[in-house]
């Protein structure tokens, strides 16, 4: 933890504002992300999490505020700019194509080529070999690289998507609610994957509304509520109950929680 403080943040989002017409989705949000940390972005539905990460990944341009990436101000014109700079996003559902093989999915959009004469062909041997290797590193045993993604579980699909982003040189990995649709065991697998990725000095931005998932792997926690941050907390400085309260905006939930016997 101490070594991290001497690092420079890889990406700094300073006072980001985003307006959609008359709606203020983000009203000045600042977040720093360091290499090798898992930064959890928490918030209830409609808190502005999605808008914030879409701004980070180049989908939206901020109305006001500054993005500093690797010490330089950045202006992403479209998501491809962000991807080539090293900011990769793994979406909850829209990441993998079930009918295609793991290997074809893994290299989708980045197919390795092999030249035969003047023509270039998809290098299936290399693709299969790399896919098997990367999957093994992430702890997934495939029947073969030609196994269809549709036969993998939800957690395994997330892991393939994460492994793919890492393999293609992601420096900042944005995970959009990777665990929200998963079972207990699969969630554990994805969290373990996040831990492996963090150890490779990649900055992970983990979006979730589940406090327990966040606390399981997070180094720092930023809570968004109604387009504003309520500050960033270090691991160990905050309790699950406090996080939960901040997400829901405090007061109302206390009353609710009493009536539910504190099970949320």
């Amino acid at each position, binding site marked *: 933890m101490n070594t991290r403080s001497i690092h420079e943040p890889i990406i700094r989002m300073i006072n980001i504002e985003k307006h959609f017409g008359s709606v203020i989705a983000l009203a000045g949000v600042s977040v720093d992300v360091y290499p090798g940390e898992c930064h959890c972005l928490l918030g209830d539905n409609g808190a502005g999490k999605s808008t914030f990460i879409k701004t980070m990944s180049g989908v939206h341009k901020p109305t006001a505020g500054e993005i500093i990436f690797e010490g330089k101000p950045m202006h992403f014109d479209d998501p491809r700019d962000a991807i080539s700079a090293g900011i990769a996003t793994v979406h909850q559902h829209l990441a993998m194509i079930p009918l295609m093989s793991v290997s074809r999915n893994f290299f989708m959009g980045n197919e390795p080529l092999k030249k035969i004469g003047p023509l270039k062909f998809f290098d299936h041997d290399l693709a299969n070999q790399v896919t098997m290797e990367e999957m093994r590193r992430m702890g997934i045993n*495939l029947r073969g690289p030609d196994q269809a993604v549709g036969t993998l579980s939800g957690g395994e699909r997330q892991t393939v998507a994460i492994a793919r982003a890492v393999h293609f040189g992601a420096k900042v990995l944005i995970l959009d609610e990777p665990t929200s649709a998963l079972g207990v065991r699969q969630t554990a697998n994805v969290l373990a994957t996040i831990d492996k990725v963090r150890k490779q000095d990649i900055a992970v931005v983990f979006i979730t509304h589940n406090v327990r998932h966040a606390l399981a792997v997070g180094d720092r926690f930023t809570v968004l509520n109604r387009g504003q941050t309520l500050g960033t907390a270090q691991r160990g400085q905050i309790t699950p109950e406090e996080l939960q309260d901040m997400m829901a905006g405090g007061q109302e939930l206390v009353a609710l929680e009493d009536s539910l016997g504190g099970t949320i």
Partner: protein
Amino acid sequence: MSQTAQSQTVSDERVKEMSALRRALIRPELGGLVGTVAVFTFFLLFAFDSGMFSSQGVMNWSTVSAQFMIIAVGACLLMIAGEFDLSVGSMIGFSGMMIAILSVTLGWPVWLAIIVTFAMCIVIGALNGYIVIRTGLPSFIVTLAFLFILRGFTIYLPQTIERKTIISGVRDVAEGDWLAALFGGKILTGFFTWMGQAGLIETFERGTREGQPVVDGIPMLIVWAIILVIFGHILLTRTRFGNWIFASGGDAEAARNSGVPVSRVKILMFMFTAFCACVFATCQVMEFGSAGADRGLLKEFEAIIAVVIGGALLTGGYGSVIGAALGALIFGVVQQGLFFAGVESSLFRVFLGIILLFAVILNTYIRRLITGER
């Protein structure tokens, strides 16, 4: 695919080893392969003496199958990319008519007429694709509109210009044209003459062509079919673009997120389908020596049926060009085989409906096998 062994250090006890049968079942070509074997077995047993397997008979059903193959390759790649083209049949009529009007009525050189027609067709294909991508409408509706628009022009133009719906005389103007020979000529004529002399194939026994083989070469139509099938298969399975075709049809949004230029892929596939339709039309015009306003009727459905028999999913993202070619072969062999066997030809449609239903049900089942859905 050979390195599965070393990776299986710890295997999940719930993942059963796939049986060879199951493994074979998820190959898209399987249905087409089984169908081809079944169809040939059937006709060899019941129609062997009908002349279906004489050199002339073989050439007959090969030519018909090749016609289906040419349009099936385009329809197959487009369907895998997630779209349909219902304007294929009208495109065949339209492009044939354009070649005839440009070369016969306007007196252009045939090669120029062919090139301009191809360019026009490809532009119309691109327009089809552009409208589908831009509006987000189902390609079913957009190309249905073009089915009527193109057919309308195909009837209107010759009627206005020549007061008839068939323009003939293409053969005369195409005589000696270098590009026309690429579509209407025959290859290996020397080889067939030699086979006739050697007594390997039938020859005419009397008349002006006595001693010449009954089948005197392989028509360019068949050559085009083979070239397009090989090109389509390699493009789909062995290139980066092929991966993009699968991805665009499998899930366009996920493909876009991964940096696949989905719009470009789909528009190019619409253009390729139009190109295939134009190849079909040009071969047909050169063979008949004329263009008719009713040419190519229902061809779009025949192409789609061949593709579906070949194992492609109607929803896109899965299929095989080889499968589609086998589907076209089944189609051609059965259609001509029933004719040779003396069966009432209307029964062919009954057969077609039944086999289509079977193919779609089988494909849906196979899709569940692959994706593990229940």
